[in-house]
């Protein structure tokens, strides 16, 4: 798929070492336009509404913040840990900055975890981008559905 100059610039910004050490693409060599289309298809396939999922993840992040950096149990189903680091990260699409907040959500009964950040949530909500396969903050829709116990 042909990419606009903005998309090309965003993909450059996503390379390892530009904004974060590992970048946003993992081992994925595809144009991000293709990844975004795939994200939308995958989310549809799993019956996940992007905005709803982002809101649930944001709520989890906020629950985790009550732990002041330590893990806390949420609804007896999840262990959630939210940590904050100094500074901000710019969005690779160059549409603002996000605080460096990271949350790990572990489903106790499944013993499976997902990791999100304020920037990864922004990328999902605003740009429908789940990050490339192999990226540290890549969210797999099926795993997200299992861990969050989405219907």
């Amino acid at each position, binding site marked *: 798929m042909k990419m606009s100059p903005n998309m090309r610039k965003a993909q450059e910004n996503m390379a390892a070492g530009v904004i974060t050490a590992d970048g946003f693409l993992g081992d994925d060599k595809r144009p991000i336009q293709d990844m975004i289309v795939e994200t939308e298809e995958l989310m549809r396939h799993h019956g996940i509404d992007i905005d709803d999922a982002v809101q649930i993840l944001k709520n989890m992040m906020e629950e985790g913040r009550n732990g002041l950096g330590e893990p806390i149990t949420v609804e007896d189903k999840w262990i959630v840990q939210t940590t904050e680091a100094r*500074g901000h990260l710019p969005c690779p699409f160059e549409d603002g900055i996000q605080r460096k907040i990271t949350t790990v959500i572990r489903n106790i009964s499944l013993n499976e975890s997902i990791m999100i950040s304020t920037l990864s949530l922004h990328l999902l909500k605003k740009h429908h981008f789940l990050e490339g396969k192999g990226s540290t903050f890549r969210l797999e829709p099926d795993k997200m559905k299992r861990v969050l116990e989405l219907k």
Partner: protein
Amino acid sequence: MSFLIAPLTIACISGVLAALIALIDKVVNNYGECKIDINEGTKVETVNGGDHLLSLLSTKGIFLPSACGGKGSCGACKCQVTTDVGPHLPTETPYLTKEEMADNVRLACQIKVKSDLSIHIPEELFNVKQFNATVLSIKDLTYDIKEVVFDLGEESITFHSGMYVQIVVPPYAKVKGSTQRAYSMSSRPLDHNKVELLIRLVPGGIATTYVHENLKEGDKMGLIGPFGDFRRSSTDSIMLCVAGGSGMAPFKSILHDMIDSNVTNRDVWYFFGARSLRDMFYMDEMRALEKENSWFHFVPALSEPMEEDNWTGETGLITDVLDRFIKDSIGVEKDLEGYLCGSPGMINACNNVMTNNGIPIEKIYYDSFA
């Protein structure tokens, strides 16, 4: 040979265009010499225009705080520009309040110097220097926190406890550019030739990954500082210090500074929160300081101690422990001050506990990770 004509023609045209662009860039972006007047004539520096204010000032040995090294992602390099340099840029506005914008506060990393201009910076920034430091030692404090000690060699640093430095991380692995990040100093102000930092690994962090995976003893590293206004007040109030993890850095410096300066007229309570024993560090050192100094009280607390920790100390969130101690051991009626270092969430929670116990908000000082 005719098949070469097209590529050669394209190559020639590209070459001519590239030369033309370079020539235009030299003409259009040549602003000549510009004067930067700092603090109404306190210093006047002559620079070659065309670059950003932040980097031009640093070439003259004047360093503004910059936790991102001029990438426009930290908002630390604020300074007042009293000359008209155009409207605020979209890259500046997220970091500035309405009052700051009305006061002509700008981000120095976003302002290009194209003509003479006047700026205002805090006087103490004239004391900031860049050091070519050598890594003296690296010690694992926990699975994700390292203590890094730098030797400044012939150079010396003058700072008050609570201040921070910026480390200059060179390009490495896939990281092409140099990066700067800010860390509170945990070293003693009395030791002018050493800087100690406590650095926690941040997932995907450019600087912390470098420190944790690449930095070795004997390596050279640039340090810029000192910066910051987090400090111990000069009152006799009881100090309630709260921090977990690498947030201990400024308090370690403050404690040693008090001992070195023989400040024994005020009690210090240090509440150190962690999840389990593997997240705790400097326990022996803190216990020893407590034993030697009757005015110092160390309160470590675990929120989720493991069975094998055999923990007999305080348990629960550090805010709950703090609340209990203020009410039961220290006394709400006492003259108290709060000192906090950590995430905005932790600071807000501690602020609530302290203000609910009668400590005025203006007597709560903090070094926020925001």
